[in-house]
């Protein structure tokens, strides 16, 4: 569906996208994972023909986006990170406008608009203006505007930012539904759980470079020996982190919201040492569990930093 070859984007001396090569296959949900500023949105903007490509090429459904952008864009539906809708037009008018831009007319346009509204669960609010919508409803309308013309490729740039759990679930379910209906989806996020739950394949991007690409299992296999010890604690002092990090076998340790996370190649062996240090420092332990590597630890292992850095 998409071939990305040697893609480079520079801003002055900075390289935002550094020689990325990717193949995204028809019918898959492809995740682009990376922290803020990793180059995900820049990559997506080049895929969508919204940003000049400095070097390399993007072939969308056999069409070079630089050589024939209008033809390529007919196959594309972009859900931008920002809620890019017109606040003073109703939900229906917004979708109709974007439907017309994609070339839909007459009864087909009406059918598709109703279908898009139905799909995102906004049929009952079709004649209301988005100003009155909740954040989740606006996000759903943002998605509907990209679906109205049944694009072969749907590009979603962090579509769940800043919304409640219910709307997030609705959106993630919708994405899976779209995929089952035959759409290829590129999904970017820095929410690891989302990417993990819906994507068939995942590319990890950091500092504009493609760090790794594959299925969840393939990525986990890259760091298969790593495990994570999760300790729920009270009265933890950040100074103790340094003590934990120098234990032999500990690759990294972090503390966030009362949860201490320790990445190691052998959890069984070092668990005793960890508990000893914590009890020595009078840290109250509420629970302890050991988990296999997830994408977060894969990311940490490959890039040396957390997704939330």
């Amino acid at each position: 569906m998409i071939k990305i070859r040697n893609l480079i984007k520079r801003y002055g001396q900075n390289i935002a996208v550094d020689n990325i090569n990717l193949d995204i296959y028809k019918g898959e949900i492809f995740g682009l994972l990376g922290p803020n500023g990793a180059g995900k949105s820049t990559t997506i903007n080049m895929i969508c023909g919204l940003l000049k490509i400095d070097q390399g090429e993007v072939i969308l459904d056999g069409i070079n986006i630089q050589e024939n952008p209008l033809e390529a864009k007919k196959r594309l539906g972009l859900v931008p990170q920002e809620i890019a809708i017109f606040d003073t037009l109703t939900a229906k008018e917004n979708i109709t406008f974007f439907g017309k831009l994609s070339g839909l007319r007459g009864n087909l346009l009406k059918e598709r608009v109703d279908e898009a509204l139905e799909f995102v669960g906004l049929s009952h609010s079709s004649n209301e203006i988005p100003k009155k919508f909740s954040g989740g409803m606006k996000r759903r309308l943002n998605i509907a505007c990209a679906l109205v013309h049944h694009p072969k490729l749907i590009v979603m740039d962090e579509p769940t930012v800043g919304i409640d759990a219910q709307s997030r679930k609705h959106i993630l379910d919708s994405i899976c539904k779209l995929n089952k209906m035959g759409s290829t989806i590129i999904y970017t996020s820095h929410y690891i759980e989302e990417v993990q739950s819906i994507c068939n394949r995942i590319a990890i991007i950091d500092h504009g470079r493609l760090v790794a690409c594959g299925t969840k299992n393939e990525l986990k296999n890259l760091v298969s020996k790593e495990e994570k010890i999760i300790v729920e604690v009270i009265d933890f002092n950040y100074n103790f982190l340094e003590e934990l990090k120098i234990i032999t076998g500990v690759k990294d340790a972090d503390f966030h919201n009362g949860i201490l996370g320790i990445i190691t190649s052998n959890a069984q062996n070092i668990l005793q040492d960890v508990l000893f240090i914590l009890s020595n420092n009078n840290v109250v332990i509420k629970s302890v569990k050991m988990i296999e590597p997830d994408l977060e630890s894969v990311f940490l292992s490959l890039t040396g930093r957390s997704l939330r850095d």
Partner: protein
Amino acid sequence: MNILNIVFKDLKIIIKNKMVLILLLVMPVLMIALMGYALKPVFEIEDKIEKFEILYSNEDRGELGKNFYNYLKNEGKDLFNVNSINTEKIEGKISDEKYNIAIVVLNTHTQYEANVENTTIKIISSGRNPVEEAVVTSFIKTYTQAVNRGIGLAKIHQENTEDSELIINTILHDTQTKYGMTFVKSQQIDKGITNNITSYQFFATSMLIFFLLTSGMGLGGDLIDDRENKTFKRIHSFPIKQREYLIGKIIGNGFISIIQAIFIMLFARWLFKVEWGNQMGGLFLIVILIIFISSALGVIFSSLFNSSKALTSAMTVFIWLMTFVSGGFTVSPIGIFEKFTINKWAFDGIIRLIKGNSLIDIWVNLTILIIIATILWVIGVTLYNRRKTYE
């Protein structure tokens, strides 16, 4: 087709915003009403001399006595009221301060004139009103010069033809019948552009230009809002060319401006009796040029600013300053600086059309406006293309 989609979307957004719509249409009319009323006295100075009373005594019962009386009644009817009186009573009436001036034609008048003797029409003045005195003196002088020249010509003619039967009046009559009064004509040339227009005509024109220039703020603000809200980016993720988007924006904004112009012109005519003349085609051309210039300003300012509020503030200051310098608010342009304003050339053009001039008469104004529009659009398009609006 994409251009029309953009146009209709923009029109829909404006129509839905009732407050903006009301401001667009009502504000200009309010401004014309306020400023037109406030500065009405500047345009309607009463420069006529009020009709006054004079005393008149005609002791001459001959041909020229009657002739002078007719001249006095006919030519002087708009200047003064003639009160006939006996010569003896004149002194007393003037001393009583009831009258300031009197004209006395002596009883030897006709005889003297017919014989080309020197004679005098007496002007008796109280000295209290120099204006009335000057008016009557000038009036009598005009008469005496005409009569004296006529008598002189008639006398020479009589000597050359040796026709002793000819009388002066017959010669004067024959000459006038044959040649009329066409040898020397006077023509008044109106050099002041604002002469002979009403305050409402002035401010309707001035405000029409002002509000059309501000219409570019709508376009510029929209361009920035689309950029900031990322709707610009989203629109261009669909198969639409950048120029289609820009042209659609310009047409949408221009359409609203034309509606605004028609509204201003119709309401100014209806409420303030403003005459716009017969050159509607020319007026439309200038309106289109102003809208074109205003749109270019909007595009330029949108490339320089990152928020529509900043753009609105900057453009408001710029247009107010230009209107002020051109005298659009105060009726008094600021020296030669007015020539560097768009308002001056547009205003002069419209006023000349209102006064009945043709498009050819305002070719300088049109040329300058076209040059300004072209320069601004070249700058606008360059800046617009240079700004990487998706990023």
